[in-house]
Each structure stands twice: as C-alpha cells, then as structure tokens.
C-alpha cells in the first residue's frame, strides 16, 4: 500500500470575536490526526483559540480566469459605499 496521507487546510481563530483565518496545510490520515497536526504545527506560539481543518480536496475555488466577470462588475457600483452620498454638514447623526 502506498496511498499518501491527504492534505488538509488549517484555519485558526486567533481570539474570540475574530473569524477563522487560513494558516496553512498539514498531511494527516484522518480528521482527528489533522486537528492534532494542525495544533502541533500552527499553534505552538499561542496563535489561536480554535481550529478548523478541512480536506483540501473539499475546497471549491473560483477560477482566476473568471475573475473579470466575477469581480470587476462590482467596481462601478460606487453607490454601495456611504461616501457616494453627499449630505450637508449641518445634518447630524446620519
């Protein structure tokens, strides 16, 4: 048998109140081992209070080739941002 241990992506919550953030990857044969490998690899310096591990194969990523149609249409929707609207100085609390 020579099946390699699959790759897992590791996400760490640095402290409560923050979202989990991608930290890196580990190889592990199963989910428990992946969590422990993540703990032993990525939280040795008090980097976090919570861990997620996700099989790398389960991540569906957008194609960089589609970036133009996916993300560029947002560029001209300036009205979604508060600074688009001009309100007189004397109007408060808005």
């Amino acid at each position: 048998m020579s099946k390699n241990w699959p790759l897992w992506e590791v996400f760490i919550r640095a402290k409560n109140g923050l979202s989990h953030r991608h930290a890196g990857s580990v190889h592990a044969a199963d989910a428990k081992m992946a969590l422990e490998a993540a703990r032993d690899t990525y939280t040795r310096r008090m980097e976090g209070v919570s861990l997620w591990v996700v099989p790398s194969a389960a991540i569906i990523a957008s194609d960089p080739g589609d970036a133009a149609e996916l993300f560029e249409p947002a560029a001209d929707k300036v009205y979604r941002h508060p600074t688009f609207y001009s309100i007189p100085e004397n109007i408060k609390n808005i």
Partner: protein
Amino acid sequence: MYTTELKDKNQKPQVAAVVEDPERLAAFEARVAADDFIEPKDWMPEAYRKTLVRQISQHAHSEIVGMLPEGNWITRAPSLRRKAVLLAKVQDEGGHGLYLYAAAETLGTSREEMIEALHSGRAKYSTIFNYPTLTWADIGAIGWLVDGAAIMNQVPLQRTSYGPYARAMVRVCKEESFHQRQGYEIMMALAGGTDAQKRMAQDALNRWWWPSIMMFGPPDENSPNTAQSIRWRIKRETNDELRQKFIDVTVPQAEAIGLTIPDADLKWNDARGSYDYGAIDWEEFYAVVRGEGPVAKERMQARVKAWEDGAWVRDAATAHAAKHEAREAAE
C-alpha cells in the same frame, strides 16, 4: 543559501522546452514587475513553475536535513534550558520544512514526490548541513552563523512573487527570530567561559565560517539564473549582495565576544563602507554540492532510514482511516 542555485557548475542550464504564449507571458511579467502576487491557480510560465518547485523544495529539504546536525546534540544539551530550547528550535525547522513542502505542493508536486527526489539524490539541499557537529559549540555556531545567513536570505523572500511561498516565509521569519539569538547566546557563554570552552567556540567559528558564507551561493558572475530569478521576484537580492551584508553585520558580533574570524584578508574598507574578505574556496563548495561533503552520506542515510522505517506507520494510519470510513458509511 537554502535556496540558491545548487547545481554543479559543469551542469548545463536547462533549456526551456515549452514555448509560452507571448501575450500571456507579457501580462505575467507585467504583474510580477508591478510586485503583484501570483497565486496557485493563476497562469504562470512553465519555467517559473519549475524554478519555484526546485527552489521551494530545495529550501524545504534544507530545513529537514538541517534538523540532523543540531538534532545530534539534543540528547546531550548541557542544561535543561538548553535542551528545551534546542528541541524547540529543531522542531521549528521541521515546521518550516512542512510549510515549505505545502507551498511547493500548491504548484502540483506532492510532498512524496519531493521526498523521493531528495532520497534518490536528484534534489539538492543546502551544502552547509553536510558538515558534522563535533562539539556543543557547533550548536552555537549554527544558530549564530547558519541561521543568521538564512535570515538574511529569507527576509526579502517574504516579498517573493509567489503568494504561498511568500506567506510561508512570513511565518518562517517570525519563528526564526529566536534561533539566531539562542545561537549567539551559546557562543557568548562559551567565549566567556573556561579555556576549554573558549577553544571549542573558536574552533567552531573556524570550521563554520567559510561554509556559512558559501551558503549564499556562487559569486554573481557564476550564477547564470540570478537575473531571471530577480526579474521574477523569486530572488530579491544577489548572492554577493547578501554575502557582503552578512559579513558586515557578523564581524562586529564576533569581535564583541573576543572571537576571531578565520580570514587573514578580512579588513574594513572605508571607501566601500564594508569589509573586504579573502578568496572563497569554490572548489570546496562545488564538491559539497556534488554530494562530497564530509557527512553527506550520513545525512541521507538518516533521512532515508526515517522514511523507510516509518512506511508501516503511514500505511497503518491510511488503512485505519479507510476501515473507519467504511464502518461509518455502513452505519
């Protein structure tokens, strides 16, 4: 350095086999020139991908093989504090290897393929780790000089053009910051100790100095791929620039603890604002690159043994995971 050209100088440079689409290539070059990051799924020229896989895996191998010379002293560290620090440090090197293998894997080469390349002798690793650690002072010298040289090289790589590599280097640099200090602290204790300890410290500096400054790789005129690597932001400073920087900061550190750099030609050059240094024995460097370092065989033997002895463990965990999954599916 961990990542410089570690090819035999007689080896021919690889000829790019793939002809790239000029338009995509131009767009790619423009992005890199603008200091944009390239991410795993982005289009990239084959030569860039290949160079990166080679460089990152070489870097990873260096971290892993680099665990051995220092690992040689963990069980003999002279105090509980030194033992814990050294174990933590060598463990860090393992972690760095792990981050780097993972960065290289995003380019489509598996860790196992890279390890296989290392064990078969196709892949190189830093020449420095093919020298033996004879005394405890060698642990100090490695931390001070080898990690010091590594930091010089790795700090600019945090801005390297390939995203996963740059992110791995950010993590590595953050963790490395204690490595050089602990090495210098060991040297300080020895240099200020008994005569026997002083002798140990000076001897370690004598043996590690030249290999350390060779770590930056061959002089710029003999480093044919440097220009391209710099253009691609895979490398951010030349071998000679980094070497000079390292020498300039290290000499005063040696003087401060009463140790002598083993180079009779070492002299401050006021005009250049840098130290002039003696001729480097590049034949020695290329011999080690060819695999003729004093303990190259021992290093490879240890790596291969660990990997082969571990095969049944890796297989067992895989088999258990499959059984476990099958059982859960059946429920």
